[in-house]
């Protein structure tokens, strides 16, 4: 047996909700004796759910980027902003640092999530033992940064509430922002559905 035994090798199962360590059981619908949550060796249907949520998130991310997220009207001058045009506007009008923050939250973070989760799904499915510690770190990174993408959604909401000066100036949300909000929620659900234990479940456990 390896120096770092894993739960199934010792006939143990850990509750995913409260952390209680139990003896494994062949029962199908076993519940944690401490918190009552269902006991699983791995998250239920992790591959299928993660793929489904990730693909749905990606499909919604397309209209989120193509469609405008916000309309600004100033003295009859109507301007529809997409995510990327909003970033460029911040950059051009003298706030390059904030432009970088918004670009990171709205473009870089979602793209990283799609890329990392796809990599994790494919490599874990193949039982690959390539760069396991690094992949485990990537997963934790994705979990940590995920919700920061909501930034642009909140910005549109706040500007809508604030900039209401009749015909002189106003800001209104456009459908892109709804798609974007849903993308963030779906990718968060996708990363929660992925079971990082699968990274270590390869054909050969080499350490």
């Amino acid at each position, binding site marked *: 047996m390896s120096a770092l035994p894993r739960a199934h090798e010792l006939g143990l199962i850990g509750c995913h909700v409260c*952390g209680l360590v139990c003896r494994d059981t062949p029962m199908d619908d076993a519940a944690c004796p401490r918190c009552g949550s269902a006991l699983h060796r791995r998250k239920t249907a992790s591959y299928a759910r993660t793929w489904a949520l990730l693909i749905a998130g990606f499909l919604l991310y397309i209209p989120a980027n193509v469609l405008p997220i916000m309309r600004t009207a100033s003295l009859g001058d109507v301007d529809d902003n997409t995510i990327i045009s909003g970033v460029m506007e911040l950059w051009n009008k003298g706030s390059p640092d*904030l432009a970088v923050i918004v670009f990171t939250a709205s473009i870089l973070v979602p793209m990283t999530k799609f890329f990392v989760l796809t990599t994790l799904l494919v490599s874990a499915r193949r039982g690959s033992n390539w760069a396991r510690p690094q992949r485990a770190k990537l997963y934790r990174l994705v979990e940590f940064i995920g919700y920061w993408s*909501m930034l642009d959604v909140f*910005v549109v909401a706040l500007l809508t509430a604030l900039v209401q000066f009749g015909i002189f100036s106003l800001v209104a949300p456009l459908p892109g922002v709804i798609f974007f909000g849903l993308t963030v929620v779906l990718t968060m659900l996708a990363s929660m559905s992925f079971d990082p234990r699968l990274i270590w479940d390869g054909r050969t456990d080499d350490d």
Partner: protein
Amino acid sequence: MAGMSVPSPAIEQAPAPVPAPLLICEHCDTVYRRRPLACGETARCARCDAVLERHQRLGTNAMLALILTAMLVFVEANVWPIVTLGLNGEKVATTLWGMILAMWHEDAKVVSVLAAATLFFFPLAKMIGMGWLLLFARKGQRAPGFRSLMVGLHYLHPWTMSEVFVLGVLVSIVKAHLYFEISPDPGIFAYAALAVLITIFAGVDLRQLWETLPEHATTEPTE
């Protein structure tokens, strides 16, 4: 932390807790024998480097005080205007709920619901839930509804977004500044304070309550 071995009899019955003080890494399923942590120490998994356990610096009373402070700040953050905008002498201010309602009326109901949940209801539920649990934990008791609250808080954890909102206000101020004369109001400082407090809570692991509070502790504490 070294691993260990435990005999594994296959028992054809309901799962029973293992009496030995064991700990399983949530990220890779490696089993460890638990050992007491020194002050400020963090135990990490030798296989995947995830955090296994952190020493809790804050006692129950300190955590409770933090939560009460957070609740006060939360009320302020919701009552005071977040930002005030001025154009040609005209002023417009908004609160969090002003923003949520504006999105509702502008036919972005999905966004309205998302904002209400992640910026108002979830943080509020988290604070009330933790406050309730700690109020009883102080007396060494499990609060009524302990089990479902502990499970509920576990699922709620990733869905509070006050700290993202604080950054969002900052970005909004700059964006609006491109067009208008704009000034931040006290509400934003309350949000910034709330974000700091929520970040501190995020590090608080209430899971320890499962162990520190025995299942049927209805008797008075013996302090």
